């Protein structure tokens, strides 16, 4: 079966430092893949590299049969690869609706699109605050808005960088449900996570990254049984 996203030999540098070392990654259609690892292991850099936000970066990134490693960020996004960065980056002066407007793009062939109303169903909290400036929302509401904003671009795949970070356990549960809804909608999703409990609830497969290298790949179920690996890299 052909992969939705296929990454080979990805190397990234920041200043003089070699951050990613031959990273490989695959994700299929309608699959949730978890990229696990501690902070500084290279999860965020991997995502940023995939969408062209890392200046010095080489390797092969095939998305929907197309090499995208040499494309600028906005072109990659417009091909349908959505990206939600870890610090949310809501436009705090803009209202919820205006935030969504910035993310809006035309529908793509073969991708089920999203309307504002569908997103308000997915994240009911947002519906009540359409005209509220982003800066006056709580952390959990902002996290939902940032995902909704990316979905407005009608992506076929979404990269979610640490969606559970800094959220209360109850909101994290809601987030897990929303991600499963997105999967049902037909999206491929890669999440980067430190919270294994959360990742386990939603992921089909998992990669573990450590010091910029992929150290493990397998199904989430296999990883869950493998205490040795979990102790070595995640130490739960």
């Amino acid at each position, binding site marked *: 079966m052909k992969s939705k996203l296929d990454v080979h030999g990805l190397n990234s540098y920041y200043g*003089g*430092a070699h951050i990613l070392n031959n990273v490989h990654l695959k994700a299929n259609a309608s699959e949730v893949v978890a990229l696990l690892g501690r902070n500084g292991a290279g999860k965020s850099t991997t995502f940023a590299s995939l*969408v062209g936000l890392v200046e010095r970066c080489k390797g092969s990134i095939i998305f929907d049969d197309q090499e995208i490693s040499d494309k600028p960020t*906005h072109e990659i996004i417009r091909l349908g690869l959505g990206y939600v960065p870890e610090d949310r980056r809501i436009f705090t002066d803009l209202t919820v609706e205006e*935030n969504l407007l*910035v993310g*809006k793009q035309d529908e793509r062939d073969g991708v089920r699109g999203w309307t504002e109303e569908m997103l308000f169903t997915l994240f009911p909290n947002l519906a009540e605050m359409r005209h509220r400036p982003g800066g006056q929302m709580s952390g959990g509401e902002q996290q939902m808005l940032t995902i909704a904003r*990316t979905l407005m*671009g009608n992506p076929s795949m979404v990269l979610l960088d640490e969606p559970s970070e800094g959220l209360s356990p109850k909101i994290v549960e809601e987030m897990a449900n929303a991600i499963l809804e997105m999967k049902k909608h037909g999206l491929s999703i890669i999440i980067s996570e430190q919270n294994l409990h959360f990742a386990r609830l939603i992921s089909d497969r998992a990669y573990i990254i450590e010091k910029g290298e992929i150290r493990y790949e397998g199904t989430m179920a296999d990883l869950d049984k493998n205490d040795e690996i979990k102790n070595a890299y995640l130490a739960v």
Partner: protein
Amino acid sequence: MDFLFIQFLNGLSSASSLFLVASGLSIIFGVTHITNFAHGAFYMLGAYVAYTLTEAWMGAIGFWGGIIVAAGTVALFGALIEIILLRRIYRSPELFQLLATFGITLIIEDLVIQVWGAEDLLGRRAPGLDGAIDIFGQAFPTYELVLIALGPICLCALWLLFNRTRWGVLVRAATQDRMMVSALGVNQAWLFTGVFTLGVFLAALGGAVQIPRDAVHNAMDLQIIVEAFVIVVIGGFGNVLGAFLASFIIAELNSFGILLFPKISMILMFIVMALVLVVRPYGLLGKAETHARTALGNVVRPLAPLTRKAKNWVLAALLVFLILPIFADDFVLNVGSEILIFALFAASLHLMMGVGGMVSFGHAAYFGLGAYGVALLVKFLNMPMEAAIVIAPLLAIAGAIIFGWFCVRLSGVYLAMLTLAFAQISWSIIFQWDDVTGGDNGLLGIWPSEWASNQQAFYYMTLVIVIAALYAIRRIIFSPFGYTLRGCRDSLLRADAIGIDRLRIQWFGFVLAGSFSGLAGVLYAYLKGSVFPDYISIPLSVDGLVMVLLGGIQTVAGPIIGAGVFKALSTIIISHTEFWKIILGAFIVILVVAFPQGIVGFFLERFGSKEEDIAEEKQ
């Protein structure tokens, strides 16, 4: 009463042009973070091109067509500059971008003289609007009424653009977080080009509609850029409505100030700006700068003590300076003394902006106060040089103590603009207070003591004082106080959390920088034998910035080398060509593109030790 009303209307009609220019500046800054010094030059170009077109095209359509086409042409020119030059330097520190646009300004100023000549040009009246209407028995030009309407119309148009179109919402989003906008699939490069073009269009339009009112001349850029900056600061950066309010305030201030306070009319706006900033540190409608914006001139490379290799270089340079008098003539020695003095000036500015994180657009204030301190001591007390050198800097210190107390309460561009305001206020006092300071004529006859009166002796004296002062600055930078100052720059939050009284530390740093600058001014007064209001003026403050940035802000040696290169170059260029502005401007632009880390930073990166990288790889 009637007269006052007419004066009020006059103010309103000037406000429109000011608003056009200032809103353009504000929008460009908001999105691209570029402090566009060339904005005044685009305003001037708009006026010149409109002059040519309205002379060539007849009738009302020709006139208004000419105005619009002129603004459009200049906007396209601006777009070209953005695409060719600015796109290369968006990742550079913000002050470097300022420097590049300063270079562009110099080039445009000279080009304008080459194309249109140095004479003032009087533009045509607008056809059909060249009459006047009767208001309370006074004749008021019809054209002015059109201008009065233009401001609010443009404000509404901009409001609709930013709130009712997707492009406008994208611009507002990019103002907050440009990386995120491109991560949502927006082509950031073209968004920037569009915003820059819009901003330049507004500036050029502001210039073009001026031609029936005022003569077009080649110095109109400097005056308007300073006013526009003041307006943007009073209104709050990136806030169009704030710019509108502030334009109104400044225009009316100009209009009535000339009647009420003729002596200080030129600096009224600076006084108002200072007052506004003291009450509202981010302008009338501005908000605290968001996390997305790093402090001006912020750097992260840790300062390191000199390596053995670097020490050898310093010794070699010292040796060159020591033996220079053996083979150099008086002219060279004079230039050598000047370079040394400006090295101290630049180093003192670096202490404030590089180490302290407080960018100053008015560092000449303390230089000038020092120089005038000497002049006054010599003129009124006939004080000998040896005593004057020690006492004169006290005037600069006093100035820094007062101005600094206000300035350290602000941050970023607002702080920088307040330093400019205080420099202008000082300049104005000196310029206007004829009886004491000699006003425009300056004070003459400030000669060194007998023993130091020949070039060689004076050169050695300067060398000793400057080297001692530079050594002192270096020691301060590596002392606990210097570290604390740097800490306040790095993280206010952390400084506060470990018991550092930030205001006191920065105030103290401000005063120290001012006193070294004053010392440089003292030496300069003796070198030239006279003092003039120029010593305290904006161009000298800008020169200081150029020197620091040219050399590189992240090292202690950078500003010193920057001062040497800048002074030597400008001396050579000015003495060999009349196109010195074009050459200097082009040189600055090329340097900014080729050496985004400054000259010293560039060499460090190329040839310096790679310890950090090695340390990183070992991890």
